[in-house]
């Protein structure tokens, strides 16, 4: 669980900008991803070797998820989906470091990501059908269904964010309980499960659900 803000700034005796663990670990992971990306993509060659193979493997894995669901638009959506995928995956993995809580174990992070996906979904739907055509598509097949469709659309970012948040927090709570019962040796395989396996699967699912929402809005 998140213990709340650790650092607080004061201006005119009023508290503002509380800095939580999530914020610090989130920015550290952003900087680490930036360094890693710079390192992996420096000195690119036509015949890939060494580190370039790793970079191409990651990008192709993500591309292969996008292309079947959004035909012919894989390269257009790759930067957006890959950003989400790599950031969520890296944030989940950083929980492997003892004493560090995953930024994705905080609803603020996941809800922020889900809202970005929500806005992109709406813009893509409007781009495909036109603004009026997209709004009208909520009232189909009968006008009667309009409130249900709107509520269904608004529920998407909520279920999208709570899925990732619940998985990571649930794993974190179980790990805390295990650490209290058996501080040594026993948590190692459980870390591999909760942080590595579940973290990777959840990052993949978070990205894939985003692709699925975009492809639903465009159809």
């Amino acid at each position, binding site marked *: *669980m998140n213990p709340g803000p650790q650092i607080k700034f004061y201006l005119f005796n009023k508290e503002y900008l509380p800095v939580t663990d999530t914020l610090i670990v989130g920015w550290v992971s952003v900087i680490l991803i930036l360094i890693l990306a710079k390192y992996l993509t420096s000195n690119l060659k036509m015949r890939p070797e060494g580190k370039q193979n790793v970079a191409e493997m990651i990008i192709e894995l993500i591309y292969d*998820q996008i292309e*079947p669901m959004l035909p012919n638009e894989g390269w257009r959506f790759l930067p957006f989906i890959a950003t989400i995928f790599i950031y969520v995956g890296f944030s989940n993995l950083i929980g492997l470091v003892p004493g560090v809580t995953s930024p994705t174990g905080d609803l603020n992070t996941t809800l922020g990501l889900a809202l970005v996906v929500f806005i992109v979904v709406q813009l893509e739907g409007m781009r495909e059908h036109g603004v009026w055509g997209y709004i009208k598509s909520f009232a189909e097949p009968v006008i009667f269904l309009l409130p249900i469709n709107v509520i269904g659309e608004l529920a998407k970012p909520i*279920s999208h964010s*709570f*899925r990732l*948040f*619940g*998985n990571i*927090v*649930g794993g974190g*709570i179980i790990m805390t309980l295990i650490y209290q019962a058996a501080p040594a040796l026993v948590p190692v395989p459980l870390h591999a499960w909760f942080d590595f396996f579940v973290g990777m*699967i959840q990052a*993949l*699912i978070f990205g*894939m*659900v985003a692709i*699925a929402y975009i492809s639903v809005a465009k159809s």
Partner: protein
Amino acid sequence: MVEFSPQVAETIIRAAALLGAGFAMIAGIGPGVGQGYAAGKAVESVARDPEARGNIITTMLLGQAVAESTGIYSLVIAIVLIFTI
């Protein structure tokens, strides 16, 4: 009419919240059954058509993620009941 002192009322509310958290996790049955069903069907499909293994696994994971939502909601409700009341 029985009057409770504030301490007793608080204890009752706390006990009820913890009981409620336990009851909320009954919803964990649903995703378990649903995900198991999806995995079983995926195994059947892979056995019938081993070529399409990658596609089947991707579709299975997506379906399981959606089936999991209800379980996650109950988990969040249980966490809220335990840690905030």
